[in-house]
């Protein structure tokens, strides 16, 4: 199987799963026993809003025609109308800014977490039983067990509240060493970048530390396993330097499970992202989810869940491609 047919096969799988996700998302919001339309229709006394929602989601029609129109709506990026987060607002108009903010936070956080986690796990496995192993794994296990929201709250309390070094909430607006920053819309591009970076520091820190623990644990387990293999002994016998054994013989093989688990754990990462965003009031998809849940805004919740599921699907696809790069046997 060559590279192209492998990718084509994965693409077919992605498309099928995409349809499955859309259909699952359709039924998820209609599983309520009794009246299946009861979930989406807001429970306020606002008759106009109710009628609008019934019309937008075709809730007065049989389920198969609802499903058909839902699939059409998803592919035309029409997610309906918000009933709580921004009443009568188009969900399409609510989404872009949170998506960008979340991508920024999760992108930077994940890159740092994989980098640091793999480095820590590698060091721990290579110096197995030594101080760095004990301390590093103790560190990783503690943060692995600590709920992300708790760690984020402690970080916020110390660096945002007590020391006051970083802003307490939001995704933009403040600038370091400037008590009276201009309005965000009036900032120069440089100021905007500085402002965003300033607001990103604490959320990214909390997210990275929480996520890197998992990668460190997986990396250490995979590498200790690989280091007991016969070919490592052979390499040693050939007189290859330790550094080359670690880099060329052990790491290349040990990275495979890390990639697999990293792809699977995107759902876990999204959980961490939601918690971090809520604690830091960072205006991303997580805060939007929380807002939508609190205001019982199911159209927004439906759209956000769909987006998150598609995001995980894309991440899995990227992991498949990286897998080909790391494991030549896949594309032979």
């Amino acid at each position, binding site marked *: 199987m060559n590279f192209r047919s492998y990718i084509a096969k994965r693409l077919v799988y992605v498309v099928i799963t995409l349809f499955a*996700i859309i259909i699952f998302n359709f039924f*998820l919001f209609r599983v309520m026993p009794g009246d299946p339309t009861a979930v989406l229709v807001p429970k306020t006394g606002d008759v106009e809003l109710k009628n609008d929602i019934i019309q937008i989601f075709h809730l007065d029609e049989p389920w198969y025609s609802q499903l058909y129109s839902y699939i059409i709506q998803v592919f035309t990026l029409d997610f309906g109308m918000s009933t709580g987060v921004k009443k009568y607002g188009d969900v399409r108009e609510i989404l872009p800014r949170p998506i*960008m903010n979340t991508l920024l936070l999760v992108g930077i956080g994940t890159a740092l977490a994989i980098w640091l986690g793999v480095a820590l796990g590698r060091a721990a496995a290579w110096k197995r039983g030594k101080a760095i192993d004990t301390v590093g794994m103790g560190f990783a296990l503690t943060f*692995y067990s600590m*709920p992300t929201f708790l760690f984020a709250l402690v970080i916020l309390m110390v660096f945002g509240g007590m020391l006051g070094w970083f802003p307490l909430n939001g995704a933009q607006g403040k600038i370091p060493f400037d008590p009276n920053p201009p*309005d965000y819309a009036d900032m120069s591009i440089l100021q905007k970048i500085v402002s965003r970076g300033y607001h990103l520091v604490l959320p990214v820190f909390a997210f990275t530390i929480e996520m890197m623990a998992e990668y460190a644990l997986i990396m250490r387990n995979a590498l200790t396993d690989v280091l007991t*293999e016969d070919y490592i002994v052979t390499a040693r016998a050939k007189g290859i330097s330790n550094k080359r054994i670690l880099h060329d013989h052990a790491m290349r093989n040990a990275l495979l499970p890390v990639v697999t688990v990293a792809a*699977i754990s995107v759902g876990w990462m999204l959980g961490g992202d939601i918690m971090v965003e*809520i604690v830091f009031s960072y205006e991303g998809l997580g805060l939007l989810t929380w807002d939508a849940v609190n205001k019982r805004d199911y159209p927004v919740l439906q759209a956000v869940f769909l987006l998150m599921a598609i995001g995980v699907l894309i991440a899995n696809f990227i992991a498949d491609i990286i897998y080909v790069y790391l494991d030549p046997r896949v594309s032979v």
Partner: protein
Amino acid sequence: MMQISSYGPTNNMRVRRKSSSRAMLGVMILAAFVAVATIIPFVSILHPVSQLAPESVATSAATLALDRIDAGWDQIVPYGNSTCLNGTNVFDIKRHNPDLGQVDIRNMLFNWTFVENGKNVSKLGAQPTYTWRYVGEYVVNLEATDFRTDEVASDTLVVKVIVKADAGRDRLFTEGNASASHVQLDASNSASNYNITGYSWTWIYQGKNYVNSNSSFYFDFTEHGTYEVFLNVTDENGSWAQDSVVIKVLRKPTFFTEHWIGLLFWIPIAFISVLWFVSKMRRDHALVTKTDIEKMKLKSRDLRKQWKIFKGNRLGIAGLVILFIFAGMAILAPWISTVPNPNNSANFEPTLLPGDPLLLPEHFEWVNPRPPSLQDSPYTSYLHLLGTDANGQDVWSLTMYGSRASLEVGLIATLISVILGAMIGLAAGYFGKATDEILMRTTDFFLVLPWFPLMIVMMAILGQKFIWVVLVIGLTSWPSTARVVRSQVLTVKERQFIVRARCVGAGDSHIIRTHIMPNVLPLIFANTVLLIAVAIFSEAFLDFFGLGDPTVISWGAMLEGAYESQAFTAGAWWWIALPGACIVLMVLAFSLVGYAIDDVLNPKLRKR
């Protein structure tokens, strides 16, 4: 959290790149990502918010016209309350219409004037606060002057100060609690600068309408239900206001409502053991035969060997000890907590300030949340070892009871997910072919779904019940178990003794029950213990999200309360430290035990 013992196949490979250039590449990608993500929101297609600017703004440039100043919405304020008068909305107008000239509130003087009780009052500033001491209707005039151009603009708003109605705090108690159900409805906190002429309480109890016009009286809410008591306060000036108090009487717990979790757990166990007993007696005509004793001896030797390996793992032992402590905490909660029923509102400490009608003769002040002290509370005479939270509930007792919810969710949800995962994994691995394909594609699909958001959505749809928390966690965490079971079944299936059993004529169900399950299930035990940790974590997360059952005491809900009342910035450490540490320790203990068991069952992981 995924199970960590999944290994890729191994082979040798060539060198690709040095690590330093890889690091540079990483930094460059990061920088590019930051730049792109910063710039994209300014691209107008992706940024529809800017199109929502108000259109009612005058277009006369550079002059400070009347409609450029906004004094804010009209307000209705209860007597004695402070409000913020907000003139900063001029900012918003400027943001969306930059061509309207330079208006900067830092260069402007805001003057709010109104007549209160015959006197002229003037407040300066863009956002002054004012405490309203007289009931009535006030026209507040805002005059804004620009320092630089000496232009003046003005706007008005109407503030209506009404009498303050206060029906007291909401109550929550259980049916049959004589002291709590004798509820005092007290409106003496209502206030006005005029004399209050009338109170009128109305409520519906057991289908009958009740009316009362005293400021304070007692009423017995003995039957379960949720009652809303409305209070209408009028003063001699004719101003009136409404408030309500919700009295929730929980149904008296019956044996079934109190112990349904236990029943759910024990009835199947009793059923299975009776079945086993009957079949055993029918087959062997004795409860213990000689072969059984031999088998037991072999098994106990095996177990002893495994326990020896487990004992060598110090971290695993530490985890086990912590788990025993938590189990003791859950079982002994009623005896080691200082407040017998911390969720009963009769046991809440009220916040007592000077001037409070509930204030005791010795003028004891009590502010919730209150730091730990060894002194008994003068109000309920309970000891608060770890202080109280913002509701006046005892933190120590809540933490003790909270271990129950965590353990219950952890164990039951994992049981559900393991049963489901094991069944699917067994079927897929044993029957293979189309069954395998269909079941594994389904598993893959559920593995791709982001399960934290999925839990949130399911809880938001289903409603906040404890049973839903358990079911949702159980139903979203099975795919990883199914994968592990399937891979184990595939290795066991090809062994000789399975083939021989089939040759002798054993059926599928017999082979699965007596040959495959005993060989596979111990191996997924480590995975199961790790799943418990994940389930506890998920429960804390859902409770923190505000989607847990509000009537169940749990650590996540405590932390949510602390976050909601900003205990973290206020420095109420006693409210956060213990529940936070408990979650970490419990998850850590389950993880450590899980890894230790993995170590015992998987010899490859032991020391080189």
